[in-house]
């Protein structure tokens, strides 16, 4: 049985291993012990409300309860760009036109921006290799919306997700080669690593500040603007399913796109329902996780838990849980749960929120 819970100090080593597995492009998991330790500390403080709200990082672990192993992590930053500076390129348009010359030319132009500062970010999705099966990835990604739904006041209405940009098998990013390298004089990996460490000042120091006319870039760099990495396409598909849309901002290093959705418009937030629960030793097991699976959270902040359950256990005003479910969710009597179908399919109780 898999359960989502807040990260704990004892996860440090597992997390560090994951960072090493994750490789280039997953900047939010730095393979650096000290930085990782800081990250966990920040997450722990966030769940105990021991940190300024705008600096909170909610780091969730997916645990295999049968073995106690950490299967993956996902996170939400409550507000990006408050301690460091958040950079994107906005893909803009410049029009050069003259009726007399019969010229009307639109030119894509990249504007360096800090526009997304303050937005909440769903980030750091990583699932370890042996667990990449079934609905684990979806679960890890989508459970965050139950957290967002119950604690909306802690987040910005604007929720974004940065998608890893295109790079080839050797980890070479054509966009970096065409732009960043000319100003940073370092490898993409190195820049990526430094960003992961949070050393973002070097970006301000080295980055070109003026708009970049896209035709000045090499064709291979132009071709990957706003393109996601092959491995990230499923993640983008999941976000789109939830109502996220590409918002015209891209990463300054690899040109990966940013997806965005208003918090209350996120499908899983919108469709989730608050229900009473009843103990039912004969509750239905999940038959086909792709079809009838629901996510159920305990609605707790500090001891947040989420499990998966067959949709057959969901009634109009209550949900049937086994003793094991109740234990996994650490539910007290007379409490409620929040539940939502994993798939944005039909939810018969939408109106009864």
């Amino acid at each position, binding site marked *: 049985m898999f359960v989502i819970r807040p990260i704990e100090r004892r996860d440090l080593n597992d997390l560090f291993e994951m960072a090493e597995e994750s490789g280039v492009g997953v900047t939010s998991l730095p393979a650096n012990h000290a930085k990782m330790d800081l990250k966990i500390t920040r997450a722990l403080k966030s769940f105990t409300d021991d940190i300024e709200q705008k600096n909170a990082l909610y780091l969730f672990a997916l645990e295999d309860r049968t073995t106690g192993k950490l299967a993956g992590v996902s996170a939400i930053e409550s507000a990006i760009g408050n301690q460091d500076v958040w950079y994107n390129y906005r893909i803009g348009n410049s029009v*050069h036109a003259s009726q007399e010359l019969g010229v009307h030319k639109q030119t894509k132009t990249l504007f360096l921006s800090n526009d997304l500062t303050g937005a909440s970010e769903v980030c750091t999705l990583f699932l370890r290799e042996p667990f990449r099966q079934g609905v684990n990835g979806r679960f890890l990604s989508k459970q965050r919306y139950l957290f967002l739904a119950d604690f909306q006041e802690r987040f910005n209405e604007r929720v974004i997700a940065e998608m890893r940009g295109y790079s080839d098998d050797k980890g070479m990013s054509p966009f970096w080669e065409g732009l960043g390298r000319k100003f940073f004089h370092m490898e993409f990996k190195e820049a990526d690593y*430094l960003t992961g460490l949070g050393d973002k000042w070097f970006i301000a120091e080295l980055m070109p500040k003026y708009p970049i006319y896209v035709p000045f870039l090499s064709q291979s760099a132009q071709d990957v603007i706003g393109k996601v990495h092959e491995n990230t396409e499923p993640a983008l598909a999941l976000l789109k399913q939830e109502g996220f849309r590409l918002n015209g901002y891209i990463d300054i290093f690899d040109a990966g796109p940013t997806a965005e959705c208003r918090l209350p418009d996120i499908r899983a937030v919108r469709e989730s329902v608050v229900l009473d629960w009843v103990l039912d030793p004969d509750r239905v097991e999940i038959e086909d996780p792709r079809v009838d699976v629901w996510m159920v959270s305990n609605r707790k902040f500090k001891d947040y838990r989420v499990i998966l359950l067959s949709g057959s256990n969901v009634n109009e005003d209550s949900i049937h849980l086994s003793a094991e479910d109740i234990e996994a969710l650490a539910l007290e009597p007379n409490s409620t749960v929040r539940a939502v179908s994993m798939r944005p399919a039909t939810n018969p109780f939408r109106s009864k929120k």
Partner: protein
Amino acid sequence: MYIVRPATIMDLPGIERLHTGYEVRVTTLPSDRDKLSELLHNSTESFQGDIENPHDASLIFVLENTDTGAIAGVSGIDAYAGSGYPFFNYRIEELIHASHHLGIHTSTSILYLSHELTGSSVMRSFAIQPELRNTPYFALLSRARFMYMAQNPDSFSERTVTEIQGLLDDAGDSPFWNSIGRNFFDIDFATADYYVGVKSKTFIAELMPQHPIYVNLLSEAAQQALNKAHPVTEATCQLLFREGFDKSRYIDIFDGGPVLMCPTKNIQTIANSKVKEITTSKLVGGLKYLISNNHNSAFRCAIGNLVDGIGDHIRLENKVAERLQVTNGDFIRYSYL
């Protein structure tokens, strides 16, 4: 004998015949007949001081073979670059991107669209018959403009500039244009150049990208062409360097050619020229000088021999005096050839 004099509308066919090869920087002398005739009218008015707005003053000179009456060259000055409109250039600047923490320190060239040179006096439209290139008449045609400026200092800017034609490839295409302008116009250099001729440089320049341009993002060929003069301009550049002109931080926005610049009063022809009363004489020895009269619309400049003594008078050969339309008691301006 060759003399330089103000062009008139009668010279139009002669000037048109000079339009061959790369001799003329097309953008400063239109091949369009109406436009050229307009330019000549404006020039005549400028010489006569009849022009409504002095900022529009634009002077066209021709080199005439007085034996045949043929036009052998043309040169010009715009009194105030831009004629009331912005005069566009790119200004090259260096930006330092440095991170002490990472030990990175890089210098990046960047091009800013600039109007800074608006109002400068501009040497323009120089073209000469190829067979005269290596004769003293090359200097006569070019420097006669400085002689004119010397006697009308108030009509010109304190700063004189000249745009030197940039590097072109074998096909006559500009790598600089191809890397910048073409992205925004979808027209080749020759077409752009044509429009500059029939419309105006400002007209096209206003359509150019407004944001600064990072040089390291341009094509290799464009970076190579930046601030480089076309080989055909070698003699012109050498002459201007001798006059005190120097490369500047400004380049042409179309072909990336250099803008040479000099404070007007420091231009050697102007700084070294002297004015004296003449006595005509049958034969004069001495050295060759550039000599001009002190008229405006009847301006003449030629090459002649002078013996520059300490007296207030100077002897001028009859033949030269006749060409310059001066006589005993008139004043001439002269400068070392």
